């Protein structure tokens, strides 16, 4: 066990954890942010995606010690009022069904749009390939990413 500091959504949390514990469980069980989901535990489904220093990573496969003192963003950190363009687009296009995988999908889409503000279909495929949706919302995810891109252009923001 070790005392570690996690910087999540611009807030510092000091936790006592086994350094080998995956970041996912530290975020969910020790910090108490449950928006980040467990889906497979082996980086195959993308449900646990968070941003580590701005890059999307699979929190189920990163030891918590490797994320200590780094900037982590989870779904809860996008906005507190669903005002982020990706969240807005997800609602406009009515993407979620069960909704379980959507935190990960949204975190991946947000990172994509930061990198490529107007992604084409191929860019979307590449960025979203690691994310499984068992409800089959893929067609709407594609649409929503394009809608989010437009919303961002309108706002002149790539938050």
């Amino acid at each position, binding site marked *: 066990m070790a005392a570690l500091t996690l910087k999540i959504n611009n807030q510092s949390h000091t936790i006592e954890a086994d350094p080998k514990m995956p970041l996912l469980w530290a975020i969910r069980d020790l910090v108490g942010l449950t928006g980040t989901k467990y889906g497979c535990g082996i980086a195959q489904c993308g449900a646990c995606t968070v941003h580590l220093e701005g890059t999307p990573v699979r929190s189920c496969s990163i030891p918590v010690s490797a994320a200590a003192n780094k900037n982590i963003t989870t779904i809860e950190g996008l906005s507190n009022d669903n005002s982020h363009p990706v969240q807005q687009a997800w609602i406009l296009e009515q993407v979620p069904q069960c*909704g379980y995988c959507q935190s990960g999908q949204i975190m991946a889409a947000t990172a994509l749009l930061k990198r490529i503000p107007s992604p084409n279909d191929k860019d979307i495929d590449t960025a979203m390939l690691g994310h499984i949706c068992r409800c089959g919302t893929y067609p709407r995810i594609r649409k929503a990413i394009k809608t989010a891109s437009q919303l961002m252009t309108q706002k002149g923001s790539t938050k």
Partner: protein
Amino acid sequence: MEPLSKNISRRNFIKLSGMTGAALTLGLHLPAQGKEAEIVKPLAADLPGLELNAWISIDTTGKVTITNHRAEMGQGSYQAVPQIIAEELEVDLNQVNIVFGVGNNEKYGSQVTGGSSTVRGSYKNLLRLSASAREMLIEAAAKKWNVNQSECYAENGQVIHKPTGKNLGYGELVEAASKLEPPKNITLKNPKDYKILRKPLPRQDNPQKVNGTAIFGLDFKLPGMMYAVVERSPRFAGKVKSFDDTETKKVPGVKYVLKVNRDVFNNMLEGVAVVADNLWAAMQGRKALRVEWDDTAFAHHSTEDLFEKMRETAKGEIISYRTKGNFSATFEKAEKKIEAFYETPYESHSCMEPLNCTAHVTDEKCEIWGPIQAPDWIQSNLSAHLKLPMEKVTVHMTFLGGGFGRKAFTDYPYEAAMISKEIKAPVQVVWTREDDMTAGPFRPGMVYHCKAGLNNGRISAFEAKMAGQNMGSQEPGADKKGYNDSVTEGLLEPYFNSFPHHSFGDAPLESPIPVMWWRSVYASTNGFAYESFLDELAIEAGKDPLDFRKQHLWEERYQHLISKLEEVSGWKSKKKNDGYGVAITECFSSIVGEVVKVSKGVNGKVKIDKVWAVMDCGWYVNPDIIKAQVEGSIVMALGAATKHATHFKDGLSVEKNFNSYLMPRINEIPEIEVHIIENEEKAGGVGEPGLPPFTPALTNAIFDLTGKRIRVLPFNLEEV
């Protein structure tokens, strides 16, 4: 029935509605089977039945609270139920607050969220209930104003007096309305006048699902809650011979290690639970656990053995279910005789949220929270096993991260309850992805043996034999000789008239593999066999597959669906290098036709260009949810057709996680266009019926393009 509202005393009413002010609360009382549901108001405390019936409650601020008695697993009951109620109640959806009902069969009727039944099973009662509340509010206003009730109408949460324009909000009327009797006769709106129903209104649950605040089973926490993971017998019927927990107990945080049973269709399957104060510790403790299993008492099956057996039995004697005329004699005399076998694999549900359940059992009561499709079943199962009265067992539904049939089952709450009882503390049992994928219950593997005779280009005789496990006879002592009436699931009803001689039956397979409903159940496999076979018959008859179906489906409803399918897909104007395939199936009272277009890509490989779906589900609520459900059904079918299957080797499940049980990904999804038929038929299901036609439409399209007939699933699209 005695009008129950007579028994309400004002004091009790307020107490029961749980509010400090007055409220109008209306519920459905479900009398003996076959009788119409009664609309009632809360009962006095000494008559607890009625308070439990509550569905709609309007408080003095005009806020409406609706109890959603069904699970929300993505299919949209969370939106559909309020949308139905808001229409006849004349309120804005934003005025409506939704809470999940707890398990209670007597209160809500069946809550088993399966068979695409939420809307089709309850919409008429919901419409009547909300219209009753509206009429009582109008009556209360008319009395207050001392005007004729017919001069008043309700709109947007208020009652308006037409001649003068004066109005009163529902909140101001609930107290007076609560003293009135529900009206005897209710006239429901003409669908043409709907303002909320049939509109693509955004789902109420989505804001929570894009910011991480929606609470799924795994997100639920209780003070002092422990976490458990269970090492379950890797072979289904294995028994715990012994276990060594020396190393497990050394893991910091691990508190208990105990043997636990799981009730799977009354078969007690065994496991060893590791309980810790955090999940990671429980997982680490489990890794260190050594369990010795006794699995000598049963055969260790493999996929090859199972299918070999099914192929054999599908050729032989069957248990007959539905027959007409004389199949054998007609078949023998037919001008053309066609015979084919089709095979569909075992499949895992693999919901994105792995199974989990939180339980708190004490000597006096049991409380359950989790992603649950059938709260009422769990209530009665646990009441019996824990020997607690029904009212002491409370089952709460969280949001479900997928269900697809798997979460309609009582085994995982049972297991959680037993652990909680043993350790005398609240516990959350978490299944890892591997646990979830390997334990089943699975969709059963199936082999179909189809035979048909053609005379003058028409089907004169049709026979289908289905070999595979019967989901209905897995309990110890179950009748193994009964027929499986699911053998005709998915087949369009008019075919039973147009096939003059037919025979349907099954040859059940005995196996310890637990099997269960998987989205659209038997239709998901029957549909592939029957709609592929019909395509083969059309080709043999020298007919266009769509025309051939039209010729055998003369009812107007079906003719209309086929014409629509033909029109939207451009079936008649297909280009030379395109392959087109069609399939139409019917299940849960909805008919769905799908056309798939395929072509060869630049690399020479077959690619899916587009899917057109036409859904006829009769009376409906929300067109956008229907479209979403059909899209999702098609994607799920695509996975089962071309990506994944569960195999067994030496009695063990082979595929354990998404690195071997492969899912369709975003780059593999074709364009999908969904059309909804407008008619006045009864409401049919929405969550499942879009699934069965996709796979045969795809393989029929591949045949059209390449001449290659696919009869075994799954197949690799890359290798066609």
